[in-house]
């Protein structure tokens, strides 16, 4: 319930403050379309709103995918960025830019689709690999899972390094431009793609809420509750790869949102996925809107990539979770 009030408030805050503070009065008037041609309205509609929408969609996508990953791994520490999915998706995207760059132009919709496809494939392969490595009949090992994440992140770093080494100047520029990505590149095209993907994922995932709840008991327990475990797992892995892959393709890698948000939401509403999933989506939108606000205003007029802010917030949070992991029954 909380989130339903906080979400519009953070959205208004995110479009109101920035390098230029618009003030509540003119923000609201421009938002309600009372004024169109003022400077405030231009800043709002051309820059702030696309960026805020992008932050909200990507945040929602990352948080709901994080919540699903944790359910799938039966482990509250499983976050796409920690288990290597983000790195896998980034490498997939970089490979796609490198090899497809000569074939399709990397501008506009074809470019975005190619990069997204690469990110999706990279992400999907990574989740499946880590899942195979880390889960067994007796549960999920945190150690194996995180180590697999470390290995894959290292491998991804190596591959990216190799790509950059062999790239010509133009290609290098393309890859690095894309990698800096962030939320500042929000255009009507990317916002539309983000909106469609997020609404789709947010609409589909709650159908899996019961299955995810049952999966928390264990795989064979879920099967005995009538869940088609293999099918559900595969579908969830593909949806997570799609969500994380797209967010990487649209906004670069943003870490920890998928860890911090579901965790806080679980403390507030409990672990039942029927409420956890929609609440995480809203919480993720709120967190990334606020994180981006900090990124834009803390050292204004210079803007930080939002990923730096989430990492600075998320890493200590993660370390404290690791410290108290025994109270979640994890080892």
């Amino acid at each position, binding site marked *: 319930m909380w989130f339903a009030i906080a979400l519009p408030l953070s959205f208004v805050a995110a479009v109101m403050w920035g390098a230029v503070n618009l003030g509540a009065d003119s923000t609201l008037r421009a938002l309600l379309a009372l004024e169109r041609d003022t400077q405030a309205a231009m800043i709002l509609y051309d820059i702030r709103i696309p960026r805020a929408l992008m932050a909200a969609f990507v945040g929602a996508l990352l948080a709901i995918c994080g919540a699903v990953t944790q359910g799938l791994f039966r482990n509250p520490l499983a976050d796409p960025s920690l288990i290597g999915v983000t790195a896998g998706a980034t490498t997939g995207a970089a490979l796609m830019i490198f090899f497809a760059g000569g074939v399709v132009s990397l501008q506009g919709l074809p470019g975005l689709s190619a990069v997204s496809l690469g990110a999706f494939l990279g992400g999907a392969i990574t989740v499946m690999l880590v899942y195979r490595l880390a889960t067994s009949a007796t549960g999920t090992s945190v150690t194996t899972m995180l180590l697999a994440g470390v290995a894959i992140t290292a491998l991804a770093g190596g591959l990216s390094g190799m790509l950059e080494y062999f790239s010509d100047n133009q290609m290098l520029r393309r890859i690095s431009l894309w990698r800096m990505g962030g939320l500042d590149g929000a255009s009507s095209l990317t916002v539309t793609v983000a909106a469609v993907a997020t609404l789709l994922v947010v609409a589909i995932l709650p159908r899996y809420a019961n299955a995810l709840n049952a999966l928390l008991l264990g795989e064979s327990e879920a099967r005995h509750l*009538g869940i088609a475990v293999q099918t559900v797992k595969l579908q969830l892995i593909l949806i997570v790869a799609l969500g994380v892959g797209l967010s990487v393709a649209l906004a670069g890698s943003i870490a920890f949102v998928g860890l911090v948000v579901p965790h806080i939401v679980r403390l507030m509403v409990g672990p039942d996925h029927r409420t956890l999933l929609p609440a995480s989506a809203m919480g993720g939108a709120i967190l990334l809107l606020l994180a981006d606000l900090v990124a834009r205003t803390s050292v204004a007029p210079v803007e930080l990539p939002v990923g730096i802010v989430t990492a600075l917030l998320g890493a200590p949070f993660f370390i404290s979770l690791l410290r108290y992991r025994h109270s979640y029954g994890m080892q």
Partner: protein
Amino acid sequence: MNLLEVINVSVKVSARTLVDQISLTLRAGQLLSIIGPNGAGKSSLLKCVAGDIEPTEGKLQLHGFAEGQVQRARQLAVLPQLSLLNFPFRVSEVVALGRVPHSSGAAHDGEIIAHCLALMDITHLQERRYTTLSGGEKQRVQLARVIAQLWVTDGKVDYPRLLLLDEPTTALDMGHQQLLLTALQRLTEHGVAILMVLHDVNLAARCSDTILAMKDGHCVAAGPPSQVITAPTMQTLFNTATQIVRHPSDASPMVVSVDG
């Protein structure tokens, strides 16, 4: 009519034989316990019946059970030996997971959940987080969950039901062991067939219609408790000298260890 027939089933993993040529049958309303020393293959046999592992040899038939996974989950519930749930669900939410295969409506489910909570004496814990419970309390919650999965309010259904329990009493104190046996008895009176692995031979002797004694994967003895619970069988199973006495109230056999 038999609802479960196990005919000469063997389970082999690489070169090891976990279950060796076991046969058993189970009718509606019957309770069969499997006893035997650690590593005798009791759990493997139970997993075989549950469908978690495939028998390498022999036949396993369930009569009157649906093919569809959801439908089957309304007829067959399984309690595994250890449970891994480490997310902070409320006790009532865990029990409610037993109603996942049913689409019987929140009001009806609520009634059944309340009933099963009372049956396992965990009504007072229903708002507690599962992760904060003791071992025995967790076991009672999981038991309530599998019972809720098969429970019907008026006790009468036209399809067979089978409950598989792997060592349901290990973490329970004496009072709650008795409570469980009473609950199981109510289930069998309503036609549920129960197949369970039990460590406690005396408990098995009191509540079972049939006992299957296993060692090293094969059947040592099978039949009604009075035929299986004998000093020679106990010697073979557990390699320890025992004496059989009669339970004062129902004259069921009781095993007492004696000095070699």
